[in-house]
C-alpha cells in the first residue's frame, strides 16, 4: 500500500514537471527552418475595361479566357510575353444590339451563353458551336455556374439542381444542391459543387453522386464559414498527379485526391490573391505545374515554381490592423512581392465576428506578453492614449527615409504631430463633402441645416423618394459625426448641448428622409453608397441632399467636376471640406511603429515604402494619395483620352428626364485648385472605435424611439465622461 502511494505521488509530481519542461521553444525554432523552392508570381494586365473574366480553358492548345460580357478573347502565352487580345467573331455575331450577353462556359467545341434583351429584360440560354451555330435551350431557372468537362459534356447549376445539358439542348437534372451555390467546377471525372450546405461530388463517369473527400470538404467548409457574410470566391482546377488546385483569397492550396490533408502552396498575403481589390475568377494548372490565376478586374497572374527561391525567411514583419483595410492589404502585397525574404505576419483584430473589445484585449495581451506587432495601423484606435503610454516610436527620427525629397503633404501625413515628434503617418485621405441644388447648398452649413432642409422638404414635397440616401441609421450617425465632431469635441470636452442637437438632427433626418411607411429600394442592397452615388440622386430628383466622402479621382472627383457638362442643365452642386471651417479631412491607413516590436528596421522600411510614389498609386478607390509625385501622376491622366468616359446618362427617378454628360479627367486648372485646396486642409477627423460605438449605439436608440433625444445625449455624455475619467 505504501509503495503504491509512493509511486502515485512520484508519478503525479513527475507528470507536472514534465509538462512544464515541454514548454521549450525548440519546436518553434524548428518551424522557422524551411526548405528552398516556392512559387513566384508574375502579373499581366489584360485590359482596363474588362467586365469580368471567364473560366480559363485550353482552347486550340492555347490558354484562353474571355471577357464574359463583351466578346473579347484573351490568350495567355507560355513564354511570359504580352496577353494576346482579339474579338471573338463567333460570339460577336450573336451579340444583341439592345441588351447584353454573358458567357457562362467555353470549350473547344463551343460556348454556353445567356442573352438578355434590353427591351423585355428576358433572358434566354443558348449553345453556340465554334462554327457559329446556335441552339436555344428551354431553361427557366437562373444559371450562374456552368462548365464543360474535358470530354465536352456541359454541366450547370440551376434551380437547386446540378444538371447536364445534352448536345440536343435537353437539360437533365443530376443531383440536388443548395440554394446558394458558391462555385461549381468540373475536375477530371468529378463535378464539385460548393454551396451553403457543404461540398458535393458528382461522379460523371458512373453518373452518380459520390461522397466528397473529408479533408477537402472540411477545408472548403471552414473557408466558407470563415468568410461569413463576405462574398466568397473559390475556384478549383485539375492539377498533375491526381491532385486539385484550389485558389481563394488565402492563397493557393493543393489537394491530392483521397488524401488526408490540403496543403498551402502559395500564401495569399504575399500575392495578388490576398489583394482585396481583386476578385478571383479562375485558376488553371498548366502541364509544367505553373498556375495561372485570372481576376475579374482584368489582372492575370502566373505562378511559376522556382526551386531556388529562398523560403527561409530570415525576417518576420508583424503587422496589426483593427479592421480589414484595402490600402494596407495592397501595401502588404506590394511590399511582400518586392521583399521575398520578408515574411509578413498580418493580423486583423476584428475578423470572424470578433468584437472590438475582444480584439483590443487580444492586442493588449500581445503587447504585454512581449509579442507586440512591429507595425500597426491605428485607424479606429485611441492613438493619443498609445502616445501617452510611450507605446509608439517617434517616426521623425527617420523622416529622411520616408520623406526623402519632401514630396509628402505634411498637413495630412503628419496630422497628429506632437511638437517635433511624429508618432503616426497617414497613407491616404478622404474629404467629406455635401451636395445639393446650388441654391440649397448655400444654406446648408451644418447638420442642423441639413436636418431642417429635409424636414421642410418632406412637408413641402411629400413624394415617395428619400431625401437623403443612407442605408442604415448606423451609417447616418457615422457620416453625420464627420460633419459635427469638431463642434461636439472641439473644446476638448464633450459639449452636451451640441451632442443633443446632433442627435436631434440625426433623428429628424431619419424620420423625414423617407415617406412614412414607404420604403424605396434602388437595388443597392444595403451596401455603402459613395458620395457620387448619392449626388446622382440629387441630379435625378430635386429637393434632395447628398453627404459622404470623396475618395478618389476616377470615381468621385472627375464626376463631380464634370457635372457642369450635364445636358439638360441641372443645378446640382457640391462643396468639399464641410465643418465650420470647410477644411475637414479623414486621414486613412494611419501607420505607426510599436516601441515593443522586435523588427523596427523592417517596419521603418515598410513605412518608407508605403509613402513612396509608386505604392501611393495603389488602392486608388480607397483615398487620395499623400505623395505629391503620385498626385501629379493622377493629375496628368487628363492627357490621355482613354481616361475619359463619354455619354454617361442618368434618368430622373420619375423617369421623365434623362441627363447625359461626359466624365472627363479633371483639367490642369481644376487639378491646381484641388491641389491648393488639399494643401490647406487642417482639421482631421479621427474618432476611436470605442467613442464612435458609444455615439452610434445611443444615436440608434434615439432614432428607434427607444429613448428620447435628451436621454440619448445625456447617456452618451455620461458614458464618454466615464471613459475619460478612466
Amino acid at each position, binding site marked *: 500500500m505504501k509503495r503504491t*502511494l*509512493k509511486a*502515485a*505521488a*512520484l508519478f*503525479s*509530481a513527475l*507528470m*507536472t514537471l514534465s509538462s*512544464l519542461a515541454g514548454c521549450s521553444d525548440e519546436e518553434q525554432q524548428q518551424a522557422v527552418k524551411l526548405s528552398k523552392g516556392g512559387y513566384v508570381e508574375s502579373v499581366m494586365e489584360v485590359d482596363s475595361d474588362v467586365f469580368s473574366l471567364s473560366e480559363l480553358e485550353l482552347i486550340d492548345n492555347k490558354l484562353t479566357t474571355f471577357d464574359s460580357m463583351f466578346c473579347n478573347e484573351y490568350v495567355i502565352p507560355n513564354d511570359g510575353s504580352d496577353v494576346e487580345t482579339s474579338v471573338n467573331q463567333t460570339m460577336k455575331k450573336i451579340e444583341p444590339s439592345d441588351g447584353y450577353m454573358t458567357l457562362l462556359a467555353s470549350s473547344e467545341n463551343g460556348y454556353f451563353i445567356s442573352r438578355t434583351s434590353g427591351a423585355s429584360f428576358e433572358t434566354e440560354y443558348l449553345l453556340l458551336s465554334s462554327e457559329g451555330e446556335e441552339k436555344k435551350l428551354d431553361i427557366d431557372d437562373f444559371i450562374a455556374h456552368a462548365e464543360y468537362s474535358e470530354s465536352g459534356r456541359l454541366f450547370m447549376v440551376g434551380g437547386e439542381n446540378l444538371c447536364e445539358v445534352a448536345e440536343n439542348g435537353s437539360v437533365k437534372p443530376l443531383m440536388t444542391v443548395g440554394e446558394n451555390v458558391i462555385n461549381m467546377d468540373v475536375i477530371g471525372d468529378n463535378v464539385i459543387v460548393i454551396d451553403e450546405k457543404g461540398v458535393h461530388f458528382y461522379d460523371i463517369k458512373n453518373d452518380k453522386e459520390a461522397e466528397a473527400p473529408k479533408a477537402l470538404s472540411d477545408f472548403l467548409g471552414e473557408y466558407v464559414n470563415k468568410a461569413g457574410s463576405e462574398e466568397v470566391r473559390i475556384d478549383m482546377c485539375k492539377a498533375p498527379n491526381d491532385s486539385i488546385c484550389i485558389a481563394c483569397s488565402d492563397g493557393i492550396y493543393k489537394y491530392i485526391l483521397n488524401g488526408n490533408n490540403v496543403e498551402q502552396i502559395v500564401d495569399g498575403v504575399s500575392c495578388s490573391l490576398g489583394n482585396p481589390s481583386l476578385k478571383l475568377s479562375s485558376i488553371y494548372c498548366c502541364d509544367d505545374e505553373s498556375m495561372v490565376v485570372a481576376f475579374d478586374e482584368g489582372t492575370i497572374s502566373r505562378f511559376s515554381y522556382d526551386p531556388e527561391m529562398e523560403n527561409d525567411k530570415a525576417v518576420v514583419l508583424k503587422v496589426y490592423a483593427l479592421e480589414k483595410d484595402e490600402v494596407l492589404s495592397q501595401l502588404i502585397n506590394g511590399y511582400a512581392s518586392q521583399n521575398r525574404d520578408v515574411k509578413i505576419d498580418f493580423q486583423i483584430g476584428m475578423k470572424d465576428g470578433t468584437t472590438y*473589445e475582444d480584439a*483590443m*484585449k487580444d492586442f*493588449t495581451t500581445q*503587447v*504585454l506578453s512581449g509579442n507586440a506587432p512591429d507595425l500597426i495601423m491605428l485607424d479606429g484606435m*485611441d492613438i493619443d*492614449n*498609445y502616445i501617452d*503610454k*510611450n*507605446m509608439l516610436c517617434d517616426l521623425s527620427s527617420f523622416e529622411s527615409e520616408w520623406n526623402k525629397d519632401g514630396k509628402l503633404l505634411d498637413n495630412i501625413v503628419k496630422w497628429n504631430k506632437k511638437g517635433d515628434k511624429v508618432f503616426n503617418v497617414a497613407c491616404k485621405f478622404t474629404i467629406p463633402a455635401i451636395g445639393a441644388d446650388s441654391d440649397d447648398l448655400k444654406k446648408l452649413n451644418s447638420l442642423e441645416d441639413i436636418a431642417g432642409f429635409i424636414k421642410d422638404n418632406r412637408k413641402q414635397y411629400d413624394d415617395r423618394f428619400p431625401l437623403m440616401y443612407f442605408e442604415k441609421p448606423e451609417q447616418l450617425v457615422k457620416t453625420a459625426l464627420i460633419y459635427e465632431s469638431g463642434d461636439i469635441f472641439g473644446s476638448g470636452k464633450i459639449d452636451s448641448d451640441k451632442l443633443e442637437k446632433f442627435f436631434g438632427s440625426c433623428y429628424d433626418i431619419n424620420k423625414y428622409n423617407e415617406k412614412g411607411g414607404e420604403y424605396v429600394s434602388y437595388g443597392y442592397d444595403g451596401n455603402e453608397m459613395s458620395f457620387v452615388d448619392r449626388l446622382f440622386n440629387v441630379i435625378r430628383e430635386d429637393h434632395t441632399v447628398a453627404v459622404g466622402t470623396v475618395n478618389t479621382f476616377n470615381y468621385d472627383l472627375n464626376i463631380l467636376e464634370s457635372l457642369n457638362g450635364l445636358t439638360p442643365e441641372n443645378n446640382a452642386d457640391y462643396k468639399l471640406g464641410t465643418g465650420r471651417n470647410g477644411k475637414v479631412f479623414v486621414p486613412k491607413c494611419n501607420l505607426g511603429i510599436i*516601441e*515593443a516590436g522586435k523588427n523596427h528596421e523592417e517596419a521603418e522600411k515598410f513605412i518608407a515604402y508605403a509613402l513612396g510614389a509608386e505604392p501611393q498609386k495603389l488602392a486608388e478607390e480607397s483615398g487620395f494619395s499623400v505623395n505629391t509625385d503620385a498626385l501629379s501622376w493622377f493629375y496628368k491622366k487628363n492627357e490621355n483620352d482613354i481616361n475619359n468616359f463619354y455619354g454617361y446618362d442618368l434618368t430622373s427617378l420619375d423617369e421623365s428626364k434623362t441627363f447625359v454628360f461626359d466624365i472627363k479627367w479633371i483639367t490642369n486648372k481644376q487639378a491646381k485648385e484641388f491641389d491648393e485646396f488639399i494643401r490647406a486642409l487642417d482639421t482631421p477627423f479621427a474618432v476611436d472605435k*470605442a467613442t464612435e460605438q*458609444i455615439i452610434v*449605439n445611443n444615436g440608434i*436608440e434615439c432614432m428607434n424611439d*427607444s*429613448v428620447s433625444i435628451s*436621454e440619448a445625449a445625456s*447617456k452618451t455624455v*455620461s*458614458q*464618454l465622461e*466615464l*471613459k475619460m*475619467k*478612466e
Partner: protein
Amino acid sequence: MTKCKTKKQNVYCLLFLLPSLLGVMIFIFIPFLDSVRKSFFTAVSEKFIGAKNYEVIMKNDAFALAVKNTALFTAVCIPALIIISFFLSYMITKIKCIRLIKSVLLFPLAIPTAAMVLIWQILFSDNGYINNILVSTGHGSVSFLSSKTAFWVLVGSYIWKNLGYTVILWVTGIMKISGSVIEAAKVDGAGEADILFRIIIPNLKPTLYTITIISFLNSFKVFREAFLVAGAYPHDSIYLLQHLFNNWFINMDFDKMAAAAVLVFSVIFAAIVLLQRMWNKED
C-alpha cells in the same frame, strides 16, 4: 521511529500536494507578485515610477465610483441574500416535499448568463414587458437599465440567481441540527421563536460563514450580467470595479490596473482576516 514515520508521511503529502501547489504558484502567486511589481512601473515602457500609479488611482474618479458601487452592491446584496434565503429555507424545512423543491431551487444556477441577460433585457429594456405594462396601464415608462434603478435590477438579478443555492446550504445546515435537541426544547416548553433563535441560529454559525464567503465571491461574478446588459460603460450606478479593470485592460492601462488590483486585494484580504478573527473570537 515515530518521528521517522511522520517525516515520511509529510514527504508523501507534499508530493501529492505538489501538482496543485505548482498550479497555484504558477497561475496565482507568481502573477500576483508580478502585478505587485508592475504596479510600480509604467505599463508599456516598464519604467520605475515608484508609487505614482497608486497616487493616480487614488485620484481617479472612475476608480472611486467603481469602488463605491462595488462596496454598496456587496453591502446591500450579501445581507439581503442571507436574510431572505434563511427565512425561505426555514419555511422549506417545514414542508414535506423538500427534495423536489431542492431541484427547483437549483434551476437559476443552471441557466446560462447569456440567456439570463436576454430575459432581463426582455423584461427591463426601455421597450420591454414591464414598461409595456406600465405604459398600457397609464403610467410613464421607466428607463430601468439607464437610470439609478439599474442598481436595483442588478441586485435583484444577483439575489434571484443565488437564492436557490444559498437556500440549499441553509436547509442542509438546518437538517443537520439534531431533532432530539429540538424535541427536548419543546418538552421543556420552548416556543417556535425560542427554538429558532436559541437553537437553530446558534447552530448555523459555520454555515453562515460558508454562505458569507461564497456570496461575497459570487457578488463579483455579477459583472457578467452587468456587462452583457449595459456594455463597457453602463449607467453610473452599476459601474463596478470589473468594468473599470476590463476597460483599463483594453486601453492598456496595465499599470493602473496592477495598482488597483493590489489595493483591492489588500482590502479584501484584510476584510477576510478580520471576519475570521471575529468568528474565532466568538467561538
